[in-house]
């Protein structure tokens, strides 16, 4: 199992090697990976049916409770099969779709990396490793969306998607940590036992909020939905795979997975119902206002994800069952629609649904696949979409007081989605073939077999639901709901309310499709509302945050060294003065201070004289030398108080400082304009205040009882353990050797920094001169 998950990463790492020696074989080689994994996961169908779930344990970081445990149950098996199955079709499709592309090898590398991460997300039992895989899916999706990296729009979309999903992932991480703190484990299977404790704890509200942000960002729920239409900049196989069938369902997976653990409370249900309903209606309306096929599909995907959140929110057994079926049904028809869009785009070069028509005459098999997918999305009997829609209406119409409102919303969404589905799957193929697309022809079977195959599955599962009821849907239902009710899927439920609603949906949708033609004008009219769209608000927020940071930095980092020093000193003075006078009693014990010797008087006089020189002279050289004298006088104090090592180092440093100043300052032009009187007074006041505060602080320190245990240990053991008599040096090279080692590295970095600042001419504004 571990190998099955990480195989994709290994393949991704091997890309450079393969592309060097086996460049032409890459599509075959890499398509074999999802196919073999698909077969591998199929084997578990029987075992899951009888045992419920299987755990695979691999230790990773046992000290922190993080391991690579994998839990295979109905839900994760369904996702694993979708990831590898649709993955295989997409891998094969890509072989022709991007044939001859310069970076085809890279593309397969990213795809296998994504596939492995996605498998990791749905199989991980340990929440920490799930989080890591979760973020890996965001990262690989970033690479895939930005695959056309010469296009600025595509780079921007990639970054938007990464920021939104990455942000959500981090929020979810805090939720995971909080959950671990409450429930006592990172393991989902173990947490299941403490479900009641978690639900009754005070942090429950926080946990679900944090998880919701993670799930909603990943699954493009309102108001985080806008990254998904942007992500359509990616090549169509990516949109198919990541942004309709698998990755965007990771949030749904998360919610479904945690339903038995965190679900079935008022806040859980009402939040999910509200967000899900808003998303599904909002996105469904948007989807019929677009003309670009991929945009239509993107919004209808968001709407479908909204339906799933909505169903999980309703939380009754029927609703969870409907969610389980709809995950599969949607993956099958939406992936097919995306693949078909890719074919149309590939052959005609257009995705404008208001122009496309009549392609049936040139690409019959594609048209058949399109019809099946569109009908399944509409929920026509004998297709899987019909069953999922029936169960969904059953769930909403049985939901107590709110049944009518929820049912109306569901029906409305379904009607609009029917139109969107017909536009994508039927509209381009019927009618008259315009002249401009006359040259279009049927592409390689590699392109049209995958969508057709998905259509056949929709049809097969829809006509004979018993094919999947017991083997797949039952385990999925059990792992989402945690109950053992036997699932029964039927085509004919009798002539009841649900069937009426279905017929109503089909009729209303059909009429709407007949009356409402896609047009660009309509889309243009919606553009004026962009100002209040969540995307605009969030982007403007980010922009104003950026300009605020610019103002803030410009104020404090204004490039004048004197201002930096003043800011630092003033801040420190205020802080210390506040602490000293506000909260500490200043008490200085003059008796503790030793007698002043005549050496010290001489040194202090020396210092005062040189300070006087430094501030009164007009010559830079004099000022520097005078400051150097202050430094050397300081060293004399170290010597008097027997710290020869310190004195020595200080001597060398002071020498170097003086030399450095000399190097720079002698080259400067003579500057006659010295500070005005006011500035001088200000600086003098500030420095005197700072100086006296430091003096008070130093005297105060004597009042604190000092602990000399450490220095005593160092002194006693310097020779015994480290064979040195110079304690200072032994501290540097032995006791604190690690510090010293890192400090040398810091020194090297500093030198490299100075070197690159001075030597490499990186400032573009200077190049023009």
């Amino acid at each position, binding site marked *: 199992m571990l190998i099955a998950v990480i195989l994709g990463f290994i393949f991704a790492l091997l890309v450079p090697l393969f592309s060097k020696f086996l460049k032409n074989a890459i599509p075959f080689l890499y398509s074999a990976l999802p196919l073999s994994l698909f077969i591998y996961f199929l084997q578990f169908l029987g075992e899951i049916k009888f045992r419920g779930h299987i755990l695979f344990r691999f230790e990773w970081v046992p000290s922190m409770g993080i391991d690579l445990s994998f839990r295979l149950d109905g839900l994760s098996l369904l996702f694993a099969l979708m990831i590898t199955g649709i993955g295989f079709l997409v891998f094969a499709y890509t072989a022709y779709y991007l044939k001859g592309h310069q970076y085809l090898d890279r593309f397969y590398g990213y795809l296998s990396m994504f596939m492995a991460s996605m498998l990791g997300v749905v199989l991980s039992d340990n929440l920490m490793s799930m989080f890591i895989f979760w973020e890996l899916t965001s990262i690989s999706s970033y690479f895939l969306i930005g695959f056309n990296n010469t296009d600025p729009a595509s780079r921007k979309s990639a970054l938007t998607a990464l920021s939104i999903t990455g942000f959500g992932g981090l929020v979810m991480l805090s939720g995971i940590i909080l959950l671990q703190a409450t429930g006592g484990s990172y393991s989902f299977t173990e947490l299941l036992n403490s479900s009641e404790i978690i639900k009754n704890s005070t942090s429950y509200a926080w946990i679900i909020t944090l998880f919701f942000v993670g799930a909603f960002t990943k699954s493009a729920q309102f108001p985080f939905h806008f990254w998904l239409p942007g992500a359509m900049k990616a090549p169509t196989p990516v949109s198919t795979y990541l942004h309709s069938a698998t990755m965007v369902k990771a949030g749904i997976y998360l919610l479904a997975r945690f339903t038995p653990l965190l679900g079935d409370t008022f806040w859980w249900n009402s939040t999910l119902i509200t967000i899900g309903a808003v998303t599904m209606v909002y996105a469904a309306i948007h989807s019929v206002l677009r003309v670009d096929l991929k945009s239509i599909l993107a919004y209808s995907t968001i709407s479908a994800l909204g339906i799933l959140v909505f169903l999980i929110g309703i939380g009754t057994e029927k609703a969870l069952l409907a969610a389980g079926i709809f995950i599969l049904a949607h993956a099958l028809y939406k992936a097919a629609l995306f693949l078909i869009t890719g074919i149309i785009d590939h052959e005609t070069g257009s995705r404008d649904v208001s122009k496309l028509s009549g392609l049936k005459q040139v690409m019959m098999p594609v048209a058949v696949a399109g019809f099946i997918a569109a009908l399944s999305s509409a929920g026509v009997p004998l297709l899987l979409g019909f069953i999922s829609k029936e169960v969904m209406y059953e769930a909403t119409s049985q939901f107590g007081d709110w049944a009518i409102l929820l049912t109306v919303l569901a029906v409305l969404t379904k009607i609009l989605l029917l139109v969107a589905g017909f536009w994508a799957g039927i509209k381009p193929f019927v009618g008259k073939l315009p002249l401009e697309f006359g040259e279009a022809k049927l592409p390689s079977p590699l392109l049209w077999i995958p969508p057709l195959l998905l259509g056949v599955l929709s049809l097969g599962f829809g006509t004979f639901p018993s094919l999947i009821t017991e083997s797949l849907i039952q385990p999925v239902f059990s792992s989402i709901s945690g109950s053992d009710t036997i699932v029964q899927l039927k085509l004919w439920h009798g002539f009841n309310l649900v069937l009426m609603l279905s017929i109503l949906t089909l009729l209303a949708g059909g009429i709407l499709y007949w009356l409402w033609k896609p047009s660009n004008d309509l889309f243009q009219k919606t553009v004026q509302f962009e100002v209040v769209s969540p995307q605009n608000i969030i982007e403007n927020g980010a922009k104003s945050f950026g300009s605020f940071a610019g103002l803030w930095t410009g104020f404090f980092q204004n490039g004048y060294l004197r201002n930096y020093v003043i800011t630092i000193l003033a801040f420190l003075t205020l802080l210390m003065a506040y602490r000293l006078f506000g909260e500490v009693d200043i008490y200085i014990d003059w008796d503790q201070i030793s007698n002043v010797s005549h050496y010290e008087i001489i040194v202090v006089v020396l210092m005062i004289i040189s300070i006087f020189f430094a501030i009164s002279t007009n010559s830079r050289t004099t000022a520097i030398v005078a400051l150097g004298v202050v430094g050397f006088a300081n060293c004399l104090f170290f010597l008097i108080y027997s710290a020869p090592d310190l004195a020595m180092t200080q001597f060398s440093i002071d*020498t170097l400082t003086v*030399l450095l100043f000399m*190097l720079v300052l002698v080259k400067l032009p003579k500057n006659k304009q010295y500070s005005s009187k006011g500035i001088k007074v200000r600086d003098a006041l500030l420095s005197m205040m700072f100086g006296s505060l430091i003096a008070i602080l130093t005297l105060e320190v004597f009042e604190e009882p000092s602990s000399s245990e450490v220095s005593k240990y160092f002194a006693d053991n310097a020779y015994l*353990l480290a*064979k040195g008599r*110079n304690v200072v040096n*032994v501290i540097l*090279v032995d006791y604190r050797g690690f510090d010293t080692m890192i400090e040398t590295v810091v020194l090297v970095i500093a030198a490299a920094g100075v070197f690159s600042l001075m*030597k490499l001419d990186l400032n573009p504004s200077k190049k023009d001169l």
Partner: protein
Amino acid sequence: MKSLIFKTASTYLLPLLLLFSIFILLRGHYLPGGGFVGGLIAAIAFLIHSFAFGLKETQSIIKINPGYLMPIGLVFAIGAAIAPFFIGAPILKGLWFEEPFKFIGMVGSALFFDIGVYLVVIGATLTIMFSITDTV
């Protein structure tokens, strides 16, 4: 600087200061001194020389780019730090030869560590100083 006294003095100061810096480096474990101070002194020695004779002259004496001393020094320091790891002791444990060497005294991993620090300090200081001198 065109002072004859300074030039003459710095000609003699350079070898003396370098020797002194090595002396300081070696005695560090027992008496005041050590790699850091030693390195600073050596850097000052070259710097004074460059003041007297100009950057070019000093660079031709050093022969190699002083920047190269930094990685060499890091190899010494990190090597001394992880050497105990290969004989199964914890990282940075002090290892010592049994018998003292002539002139130098006891030799152990701490000394190599200090030599590494010494070289890094010379390299970093001279790189900083020389790039400033060269550019200003």
